[in-house]
């Protein structure tokens, strides 16, 4: 028991309608890097949230350092030496790094006043001790995402964490920042004998950083292996329960004429700050142009400006040789564009409306759906929706249920089904598989490539680099609203990573 940092015994967790954790028994050893992998919804985060005291398990016991946890709340967990860095950082942007680190346990002067000098000193000492350099005086809002993550890690260390949980820590990082994070993890494990649990779904990262790996599927722990004994293929098939078929996408045809051209486009974000600065690009029929960028580098605003969701500040958008700059989405759609938005719940569907009504959106004025031009033909609408429902393999309780009752993957299929059925020559596809399970990813990818092979011009934007690599014929990198590189042929992760961080800006 001495070298066991965490022990789960027959832990089950039931949410209404879902069994998120199903009889999980797992030991995590002190001083190891343990990777927890699995598809979305496999129960990884739930298990870690139990450890951090956010949820009390429905059944089973949890031991931290040999002590059984009876009172599940984060305060207790922190007391027992658990620290967690969430996917979405819990930092106060206007506070400095030092202030964020000591927050909730601030050093005081005379028990009342905040001692900022001591806070600064402690933060610096801690940063130096663990080799996590951060300027303690800069407001966190001005730090890069990678540095903000460091502040999060320092915060947990300041509270005395010996067991560090990292929930998808690399999702928002560039390849270079990921490397730096891994170096930090190795150091704290080697020098401080800490235990690190890392939740991820990127298998190459598991191989790069972990000592052991646990694979979860549908709430169950399907296996724990020494990382040295496994490869990506083995892990992938453990995750999905079958061997994964990769690279069966067949790309055919040659690019045709230019269908989408963007000239020197500049866009401001919702706060009025420049988000896109003078971007020019063009997409031809029968090709996929991928945009590789770390979140928040202007890709969202760029796409919104192209599709009419946001008015550009300057520049032109040409769609099939027509100037559509600044038109509303309806007019741009009429000119031949369909759009899979990055955030399906906010933009892509109406959760309360039925699946049929969601599939209809944009076509409601077509003659076949209207009697006398205004009376809705409900049965025709439902027949049309059912066809799409079948064709795109949407799984739910039928076209009359509310779209909000579908799972994320099926909701995404509704969006894809609607947008792809417009037969628009230009397709803008943003985050097509975010939060979608592996089976649906395969399907969505094959649909995108089918469109490409039919001669669509496709602009793809995704936070998942593997997806961009897999689908694109060409890739551009976007950094702080500017294009920092164009790549064709065989893509290299290092080169593109450099472009995503602006590291090659002098070269372009």
């Amino acid at each position, binding site marked *: 028991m001495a070298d066991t940092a965490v022990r789960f015994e027959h832990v089950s967790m039931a949410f209404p309608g879902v069994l998120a954790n199903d009889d999980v028994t797992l030991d995590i050893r002190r001083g190891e890097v343990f990777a927890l992998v699995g598809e979305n919804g496999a129960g990884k985060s739930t298990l870690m949230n139990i450890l951090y005291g956010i949820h009390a398990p429905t*059944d089973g016991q949890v031991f931290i350092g040999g002590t059984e946890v009876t009172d599940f709340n984060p305060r207790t967990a922190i007391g027992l030496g658990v620290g967690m860095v969430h996917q979405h950082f819990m930092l106060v942007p206007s506070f400095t790094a030092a202030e964020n680190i000591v927050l909730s346990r601030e050093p005081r002067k005379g028990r009342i006043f905040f001692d900022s000098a001591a806070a600064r000193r402690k933060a610096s000492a801690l940063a130096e001790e663990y080799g996590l350099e951060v300027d303690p005086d800069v407001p966190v809002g001005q730090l890069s995402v990678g540095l903000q993550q460091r502040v999060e890690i320092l915060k947990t260390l300041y509270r005395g964490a010996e067991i560090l949980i990292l929930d998808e820590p690399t999702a928002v990082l560039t390849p270079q920042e990921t490397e730096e994070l891994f170096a930090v993890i190795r150091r704290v494990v080697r020098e401080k004998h800490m235990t690190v649990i890392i939740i991820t779904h990127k298998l190459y990262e598991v191989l790069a950083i972990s000592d052991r790996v646990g694979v979860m599927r549908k709430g169950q722990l399907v296996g724990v292996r020494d990382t040295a004994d496994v490869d990506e293929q083995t892990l992938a098939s453990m995750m999905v329960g079958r061997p994964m078929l990769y690279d069966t996408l067949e790309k055919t045809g040659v690019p045709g004429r230019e269908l989408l051209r963007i000239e020197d486009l500049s866009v401001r974000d919702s706060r009025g700050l420049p988000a896109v600065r003078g971007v020019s690009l063009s997409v031809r029929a029968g090709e996929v142009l991928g945009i590789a960028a770390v979140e928040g580098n202007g890709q969202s605003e760029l796409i919104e400006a192209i599709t009419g969701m946001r008015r550009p500040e300057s520049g032109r958008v040409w769609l099939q040789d027509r100037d559509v700059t600044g038109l509303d989405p*309806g007019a741009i759609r009429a000119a031949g564009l369909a759009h899979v938005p990055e955030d399906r719940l906010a933009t892509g569907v*109406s959760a309360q409306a039925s699946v049929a*009504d969601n599939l209809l959106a*944009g076509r409601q004025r077509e003659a076949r759906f209207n009697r006398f031009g205004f009376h809705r033909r409900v049965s025709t609408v439902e027949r049309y929706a059912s066809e799409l429902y079948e064709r795109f393999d949407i799984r739910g309780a039928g076209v009359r249920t*509310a779209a909000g009752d579908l799972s994320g993957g099926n909701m995404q299929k509704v969006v894809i089904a609607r947008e792809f059925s417009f037969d628009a020559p230009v397709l803008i596809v943003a985050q097509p598989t975010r939060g979608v399970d592996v089976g649906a990813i395969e399907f969505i990818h094959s649909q995108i490539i089918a469109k490409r092979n039919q001669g669509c011009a496709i602009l793809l934007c995704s936070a998942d680099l593997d997806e961009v690599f897999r689908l694109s014929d060409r890739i551009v990198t976007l950094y702080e609203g500017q294009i920092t590189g164009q790549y064709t042929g065989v893509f290299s992760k290092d080169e593109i990573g450099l472009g995503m961080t602006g590291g090659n800006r002098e070269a372009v």
Partner: protein
Amino acid sequence: MERLKKRNWGYLVSLALSVLLAFTIGAVILLAAGFSPLRAYGAMIDGAFSGARHIGDWLEYAMVLCLTGLACVLGSRVGIFNVGGEGQLLLGAIVSCQVGVWLGGSPVWIALPAAALAAMAVGGLYALIPGWLKVKVKVNEVITTIMLNTVAASLCQYLAKGPWKNANKNMVAATAQLDPRLWFHSLIPGSNLSTAIIAAAAITVLTWYVMQKTSTGYEMKLTGQNPRFAFFSGIKTDRLVIVCMVISGAMCGLVGMFRVYGVEHLYRSSISNQYYFEGLTVAMIAGYEPVTVIFLSFFFAILKIGAQGMELTAGVPNQIYLIIQTVIIFCMAAESGVFSSLRAGSQRKKARADIRRKEGRDHA
């Protein structure tokens, strides 16, 4: 459709329970105040149904609730909450009345349509202000409409006391009376019920039809549910919101005209005693569903007219009506929270039982 039916049942059950609870609480209050609840409620039913005159008043008030309620639904369908119907109603009333006074000598077929158009125009324009501000400058329409109510009420008061005042010195704040030729015919002598109810029925059916059966109604629904998605899918949401708000205002203005030409025959402040807010309350209780609004209008009109009768015959203050109405709103609001937490609890229990069963199997 199965799901929809289930939802409707849930709604009806919770509405029935809320009404029952409201009457129970009302009874407790009546007892505490020293009245016999049975006698009071009996007087309430009597007040609404004894005699043709009461039935006429009941139908007229149901018409007012129904039109104002639907006007409110029209706005909330597209995601704009018109709280300013009272002001729109008052302005529609006084302007249409004055138009009738000016056109007193002209034929009925000119004067009445002119008055109706004037009522709709002024109500619609008055609703255009908050609608436009919401769409273009993102000013919260709840605040602007509420404040504009006060402006409208004061303006009407000024007009009724000043430029458009009745020549009769004894009437403090009222406009001149309409020529009797222009009055809507009374359907039940002595009651408030006039031929206006025919127009109201037509408007009700039309509003229901547009919202529930047409492609425009579909676009309205999408816009109200998720405006960003509606805009994304190509609907001109800004225009739709403004148009719906204007029509909502026009309907309220028209209700004002109906009150003037059907009941009062001149403008004075008794033209509406916060009637729009009662219609809005009905719309809220009905969950903004047009058909439910229609049915509930008749129900709440019974309570309102009945409560007036109850006051006369049993001596019970008619405020009991407000208490009952308020309790129903509370219950309906609490219902969604209570029911969903009950549902979550039972699902969790079921999940737990599933685990137990599974473990039992594993150990066996």
